[in-house]
């Protein structure tokens, strides 16, 4: 999508309009030429990342908002860009998301110390060092947790959990009759939502 300083126009092949206070121009219409493997691979990566992002939209709209504000873009685009660059693995048409490389938040807040995840029968218990307040960490930073079920493409999350100084948070994901694979993530966000830490991948579990 190119940026232009021209007035809003629409021709047969392009359309220009304002997006987030920027003038942008993009192509319109169907792409009829034969597509190269590279183009198909990009489309497949977009399809995979979009399908995933739809399920975690509420989460990433908060966690990528500070980064989006800096880049004058929106949270979806930043998240999509990071997934495609860092977490899509494999060659077309066998591409898939590598959940261990997936980043679900982006910011300057330092990551948490001494993070531990304890798996109980019906719950996940996260704990961390509650006393650490170095480099901008505050006692009232909120923990955010996300659990993703890749087999059924379903995400569950806590957007505003315990304060940092509480040192623990319990999460009770859906418990299916058949054990399911879950991918788990944790991040911290300041109470005013202006700074956020990079997300921490807390592992793949059978739940």
């Amino acid at each position, binding site marked *: 999508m190119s940026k232009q300083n021209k007035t809003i126009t629409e021709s047969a092949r392009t359309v220009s309009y304002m997006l987030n206070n920027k003038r942008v121009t993009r192509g319109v219409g169907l792409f009829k030429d034969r597509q190269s493997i590279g183009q198909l691979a990009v489309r497949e990566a977009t399809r995979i990342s979009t399908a995933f992002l739809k399920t975690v939209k*509420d989460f990433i709209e908060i966690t990528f908002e500070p980064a989006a504000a800096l880049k004058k873009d929106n949270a979806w685009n930043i998240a999509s860009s990071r997934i495609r660059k860092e977490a899509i693995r494999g060659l077309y048409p066998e591409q898939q998301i590598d959940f261990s490389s997936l980043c679900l938040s982006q910011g300057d807040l330092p990551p948490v110390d001494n993070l531990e995840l304890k798996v109980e029968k019906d719950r996940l218990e996260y704990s961390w060092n509650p006393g650490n307040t170095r480099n901008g960490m505050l006692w009232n930073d909120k923990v955010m947790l996300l659990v993703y079920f890749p087999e*059924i493409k*379903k*995400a*569950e*999350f*806590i957007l505003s959990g315990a304060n940092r100084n509480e040192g623990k948070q319990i999460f*009770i994901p*859906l*418990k*299916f*009759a058949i054990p399911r694979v879950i991918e788990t993530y944790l991040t911290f966000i300041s109470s005013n939502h202006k700074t956020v830490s990079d997300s921490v991948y807390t592992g793949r579990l059978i739940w």
Partner: protein
Amino acid sequence: MAKYIPGQLGRIEGKLGELVLYQRRGIPVVKRRPGKRKLKASASQMLQQEKFILATRFLSQVRAVISLGYRDRKTSMTVQNRAIGNFLRNIFQHTEGGVLMDYTKVLIADGELDCLYETQVTALKGNFMQLTWLEQRYLQSGVSGEDQVCLLFYNQEKEISYLQESAGKRSDCELSLHLPEFMSDLNFHIWVFVISESGKEVSSSFYTGNYTVIR
């Protein structure tokens, strides 16, 4: 398809010479009057016609549900056309004797709203049917515990359907239905889906199985 602007005679509908005038989604349109096919249909055309007949017959039985279950997406297609398209693409199995409908693949609702998980149906004596599902503690935006659970019952032999709208709420995690007398001892395919409290959003339907209503 040509559109026309009604003149002083007002809106015209029906055949007019070689043309047919009708309303499509509130817009007056004109198309050529259909004529008889002169060439014999090929094998693949006959197969497609057979599918179309089955899909249309099923759709006519569940029309009320389709208009609920397919209204979520904003497209230029009518809900009927979207449903027929979905059926033709997904639900038919090719056998030596022709085509068969695979009811497990039928989507009687197609939307973005979060559905119910681990739905289980139990048929109980006295025309009762019990449905349970998992409790969702962490609801996403747009999803509410007040969302309405809907069930569709369809009997293949007698081609009868029964829609139970607002049978319960998402937060209930279980519901019990007392079904009408005419459903006793009959076998029904059952689908479940959810409609938002505002009625604007709908989940995709889930096929729970084939159950007999016990008298």
